[in-house]
């Protein structure tokens, strides 16, 4: 049972006050899960306060003439038990006053006001510092821009507009769908550093458009857009606008529309980009830009905007859809409440949710968002460490402090000094210690399977090169990489006009020699005839040679196998001199995978025996079919040359290559090579030259050791430059 004492010892301080809401404060009605709420909104300061009907009735009765005491008695007469208690009223007044929503009959206390605004500023700075990963920089007031642009969009901000938008999205998808393969092929080019500049430009443009979406829709429904600026999203600048005026909208669908406005605009732009991309010919630079627009819109929508576990658009949309306002803070409250109630067994705890359904929502959301927060932290930290080492370390530490150390400190303080715990402190400390011990055991002692990932390329143990036997123009190619060939089968056919001309000339010469030989035989001139016979033999020889050469214009496979390596098709039309490589032919029964690893990555491999090390491989082309690897062999010599360009940055791999190497096989740091073979025909379906994702299963280790190991590896990989 929750006790709500009626009286407060501080009542005398407020009872004679005659406050009223500031004249410009607007109150709108909202419904959440069938319950009525009233939102007080001060457009000047953009402060909000949500009141339940009873509190609203009390606040509404404050007209500047009635004292708090009188208003309270009115409320008591009206609502009896449901009326707010004195303590609740004092808290309510304090919060309204703190949000500057209340005006008092007393002359304003300037000193207090200054102190309060100073404190608010300090708090803001503190928040900025804590959230360094999401640093906000306020730039200007976009209200005029939004007001000017809003009429252009107004005819579309309705159901018809939504339907049109849906059609646009469908059209965009339809344009892309048939060329999906090409799309995913381009995707591998994204890791190429040259593309990053374009991606950044696309990102900023797209996000500006996105924010315009929020602003315009907010304006359409009558909200002001008082602030715009730049937010540093994990070191990536992204524009933002303050559309919080929508929180005062009466209809939740309007609030959802404002929340979704950004994504609606952004995805619309992506759909247009998709259609342009499909229409333009390959190689057009505009086409690349369109591709990046599509990519950024898709990725950022999935990762950030639509994701309800972080405080972006999706969160607010979800919060309105579920009709649970303040979802995140209240779910955190809920977690605390559950902890206090069931772990520490504190009495007289009031849950932050009234209804059962809401209760569950808060719990589920709380657990998910906590888990996501940990996950995101690890991902971002590792990502940053990988790319910007020093900045990454600082940011990671900072975030760790803000997200984990500060809350732990607050918790410790609560444990040590909270008045709530006073009678149960000993037990609470024991419980916490036990929980902490359990966590340590779980993280530090219980072994968990450990995996390492890598990328490799399929290569063959029996590979022969196919070379041109004669010079000529390639007129036809019959095979592509991966195609099976039999011995003697033609792979490319060349033509050589010079050869044909030579042949014709030689035939003509031979015909001339034969004619003259017949004449000499008729005249019975044996000396001349003998010379001409020699000549005839010579020309015959020449012709035979030329015929032989002509035969060799058809390049044939030396043995049965599969075409691998270079694509013969790309040679069509080219002039090749003799002895140029055309492609390779490999024996598909004898394939292996070569992977490249940095020194730090490879170091854990050497410590293990062959039995301990298990590898699972998945071909990029067919990721659903795992291939069990056997016989892992690491070559204990570092080299700065990749076995395949496909492993390097330029080929879509993840090994950093030297920028001045046109072939893209010279690495910046020394690399080790690891060969993996499969038992039997497991690799048979794979194509040589194809990329393969490797997953090494290491002996199980406690989580803590794994994490430390990984951080160590990342740092080591950076330091030995």
């Amino acid at each position, binding site marked *: *049972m929750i*006790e*709500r*004492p*009626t*009286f407060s*010892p*501080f*009542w*005398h*301080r*407020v009872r*004679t*006050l005659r*406050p009223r809401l500031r004249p410009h404060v607007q109150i709108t009605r909202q419904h959440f899960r069938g319950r009525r709420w009233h939102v007080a909104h001060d457009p000047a300061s953009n402060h909000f306060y949500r009141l339940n009907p009873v509190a609203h009735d009390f606040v509404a009765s404050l007209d500047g003439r009635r004292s708090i005491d009188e208003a309270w008695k009115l409320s008591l007469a009206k609502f*009896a*038990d449901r009326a707010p208690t004195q303590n609740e009223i*004092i808290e309510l*007044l*304090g*919060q309204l*006053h*703190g949000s500057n929503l*209340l005006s*008092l009959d*007393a*002359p304003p*206390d300037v*000193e*207090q006001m200054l102190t*309060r605004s100073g404190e608010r500023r300090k708090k803001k700075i503190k928040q900025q510092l804590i959230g360094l990963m999401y640093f906000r920089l306020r730039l200007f007031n976009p209200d005029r821009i939004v007001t000017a642009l809003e009429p252009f969009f107004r005819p579309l901000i309705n159901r018809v507009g939504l339907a049109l938008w849906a059609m646009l999205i469908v059209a965009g998808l339809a344009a892309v769908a048939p060329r999906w393969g090409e799309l995913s092929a381009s995707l591998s080019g994204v890791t190429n550093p040259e593309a990053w500049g374009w991606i950044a430009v696309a990102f900023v443009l797209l996000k500006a458009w996105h924010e315009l979406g929020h602003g315009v829709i907010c304006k359409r429904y009558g909200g002001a857009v008082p602030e715009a600026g730049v937010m540093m999203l994990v070191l990536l600048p992204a524009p933002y606008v303050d559309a919080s005026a929508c929180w005062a909208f009466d209809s939740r669908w309007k609030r959802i529309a404002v929340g979704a406005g950004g994504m609606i605009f952004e995805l619309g732009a992506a759909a247009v980009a998709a259609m342009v991309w499909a229409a333009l010919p390959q190689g057009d630079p505009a086409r690349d830009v369109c591709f990046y627009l599509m990519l950024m819109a898709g990725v950022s929508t999935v990762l950030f905007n639509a994701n309800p576990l972080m405080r972006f658009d999706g969160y607010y949309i979800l919060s309105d859809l579920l009709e649970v306002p303040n979802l995140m803070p209240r779910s955190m409250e809920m977690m605390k409440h559950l902890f206090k109630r069931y772990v520490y067994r504190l009495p007289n705890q009031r849950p932050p949710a009234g209804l059962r359904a809401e209760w569950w929502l808060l719990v589920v959301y709380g657990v998910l968002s906590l888990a996501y927060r940990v996950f995101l932290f690890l991902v971002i930290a590792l990502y940053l460490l990988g790319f910007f080492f020093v900045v990454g370390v600082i940011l990671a530490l900072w975030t760790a402090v803000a997200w984990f150390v500060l809350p732990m400190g607050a918790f410790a303080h609560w444990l040590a000094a909270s*008045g709530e715990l*006073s*009678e149960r402190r000993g037990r609470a400390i024991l419980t916490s210690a036990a929980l902490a011990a359990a966590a340590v055991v779980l993280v530090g002692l219980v072994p968990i399977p450990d995996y390492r990932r890598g990328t490799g390329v399929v290569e063959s143990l029996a590979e022969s090169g196919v070379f041109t036997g004669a010079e000529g123009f390639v007129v036809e190619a019959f095979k592509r990489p991966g195609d099976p060939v039999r011995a003697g089968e033609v792979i490319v056919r060349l033509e050589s006009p010079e050869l044909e001309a030579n042949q014709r000339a030689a035939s003509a010469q031979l015909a001339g020699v034969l004619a003259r030989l017949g004449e000499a035989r008729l005249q019975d001139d044996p000396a001349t005839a003998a010379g001409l016979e020699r000549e005839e033999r010579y020309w015959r020889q020449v012709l035979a040679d030329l015929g032989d050469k002509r035969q060799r214009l058809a390049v044939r496979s030396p043995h049965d196998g599969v075409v691998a390596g270079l694509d013969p098709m790309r040679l069509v039309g080219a002039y090749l001199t003799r002895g140029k490589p055309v492609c390779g032919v490999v024996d598909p029964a004898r394939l292996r995978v070569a992977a490249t690893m940095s020194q730090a990555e490879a170091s854990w491999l050497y410590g293990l025996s062959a039995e301990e090390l298990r590898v699972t491989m998945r071909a990029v082309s067919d990721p659903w079919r795992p291939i069990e690897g056997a016989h892992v062999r690491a070559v204990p010599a570092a080299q700065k040359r990749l076995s395949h360009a496909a492993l390097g940055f330029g080929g879509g791999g993840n090994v950093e290559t030297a920028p001045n190497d046109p072939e893209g096989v010279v690495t910046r740091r020394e690399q080790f090579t690891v060969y993996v073979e499969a038992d039997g025909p497991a690799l048979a379906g794979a194509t040589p030259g194809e990329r393969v994702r490797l997953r090494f299963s290491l002996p199980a280790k406690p989580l803590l050791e794994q994490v430390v190991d990984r951080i160590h590896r990342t740092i080591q990989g950076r330091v030995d430059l």
Partner: protein
Amino acid sequence: MSQALTRYQSLFDSVRSRARRPEALRGLDKLAATAAMRLRNRRVTPAWLRRQAELIDALGPAMRGHSEAALADRLATRVDRGRADEATVRGALAAVREAARRETGQEAFVVQLMGALALYHGRIVEMLTGEGKTLTGSLAAPLIAWRHRHLHVFTVNDYLAARDASSRAGIYRRCGLSVGSIQQEQDPGTRAGIYARPIVYGTPKQIVADWLRDQLRLGPIRSAWAGRPLLAGDGAPAALVPGLRAALVDEADAVLIDEGVVPLIIARSRKADEQGQMYKDAAALAARLVQRQDFTIDAVRRTATLTARGRERLGPMFDDLADPIWRARRRAEELVRQALSAAYCYANGRQYQVVDGRVQIVDEYTGRILPDRNWEHGLHQAIEAKEGVEVTADRETMARLSFQRFFKSYPFLAGMTGTAADATAEMERTYQRRVLVIPTNRPIARRALPTRIFRSAEARWAAAADAVEAMHKAGRPVLAGTRSIEASEILSRRLWAKGLTHKVLNANFDKDEAEIISRAGLGAGTGHGPAITVATNMAGRGTDIELDDAARAAGGLHVILTEMHGAKRIDRQFIGRAGRQGDPGSCQLLLSLEDELVRLNAPRGAAVLRAMARAEELRGRLLHAARALMRLAQRRSERRDRASRAQVLKQDEWVDKHIPGM
């Protein structure tokens, strides 16, 4: 014209003092402030003070040689506002010391000079009982008054305020300072005259009440300019208390710490509030409920909680009552809970006393009756209904202020006490004042007899009575301390049964009481042998117990403490009454495992020991365990009180910060 200026000046001062918002610092700010305070005060060390005091002492003969006129001349070159160099301060203090000697015949010892100097430097000074705190204070007072213009000297009660103000007036007159004391019965006009004097004696209660009344009258004005319409009024002074400048607090630990968070409340009776029947109904309902089945009692917090069964049973009971208040379920249950806590957590003789058909609150630290104080929000009425006396109207709070916040408003604060060392940390934290222990003039000759612990309270009272009798037969005066009025009556009955004539001190403070306590040290001349006095712990504080020759010869005063208090300081204070000024004396603690202290703070431990005890008196290892348990219980109680004080302060600050208005 000049009168108007003076009034404006006093209003200005008053408003300025009010504008100071004492705020407790947190976290790093707190550490920094404490460090800064230590740095500022680093010079005033005991060694430094002793050197200075010896230098002053050396000036003594020269001072004694001065004629009256020359001395008056010396006293005219006084320490004025602003900083004074050490030599000037030494000269001034030496002159004041000489003035005090000529006026009262007492010459201050070096340790008293040390104390006076420490007070002048704004310290909380610990001087053991009987070391001459009154003289020390009266040496420091002129110096402080010279420098800060107005000095408020706080005493424990009106009697001491009047006594000290008149007995010290001569010294202050020689220093060119007038003095007055604020008494309960004075009217505002008289008070205004006294407040205008440079040195004002009074109890915290009186002065804080006047300050609060000013506050109500001034309303929420924050500048003297805004308050100027008040000056155009009927000629009564705008503010009674003209600003807070300097405070010298006697018994600083009791006033600043123990009573620090007890708020002083100005209240008025509600009009047309005929709710007596409601409280009587609530008491009747409460009487029908069964403990542990219908409700549980939290004896430490003094609250009752209804169980599900209790709430179910109450439903039909509420329906039977006519008053619509019982229809509002939550309020109705609140009334019943209040009636339950009145019935089970508040006892006549402990927390309150029924005097002449009225419920009067008893201060649990001091065992004194606090007249004209009421519990708030219906608790007082609930107790009245329980006792069957007339239910008074609930009173409405007009203004309230805790002593703690009041004293923090003084720019200069110094204090004297017998036992501040135990509260050093809290003094530093709350008031930013350092505590300084002044050595005794002569070594302490008090013997502490081993503590005895009994299984039941019954056995303890029997042993206490026997102990009193034994000492009495040995010709020694005995002072027996109890924790509550109820307990002092129990002991008194036992003593009468033994035919021992004694005095009991537990009622309100007045002159008689001071007389009784000052005679508690007599070994003869009382008519029935050595004196026996039974007193609640604070009784007679501020009055010395002087031994006569008979008592001294028999071994001095013997103090028996029959129960440990919530804080060790209070025990020390009481024990300190024996063996003052190097006199002989002894003390002993007689405790039981049924005492309130262990019952509330270590109930399980006490139960185990009670079960293990074979005899009524604990011996051997069990006795050691019981002593440890008592200490543990006391520490817990101290810790809880400390936490609750911090909590009150925090609440005060929250309201200050977030609620507009006064």
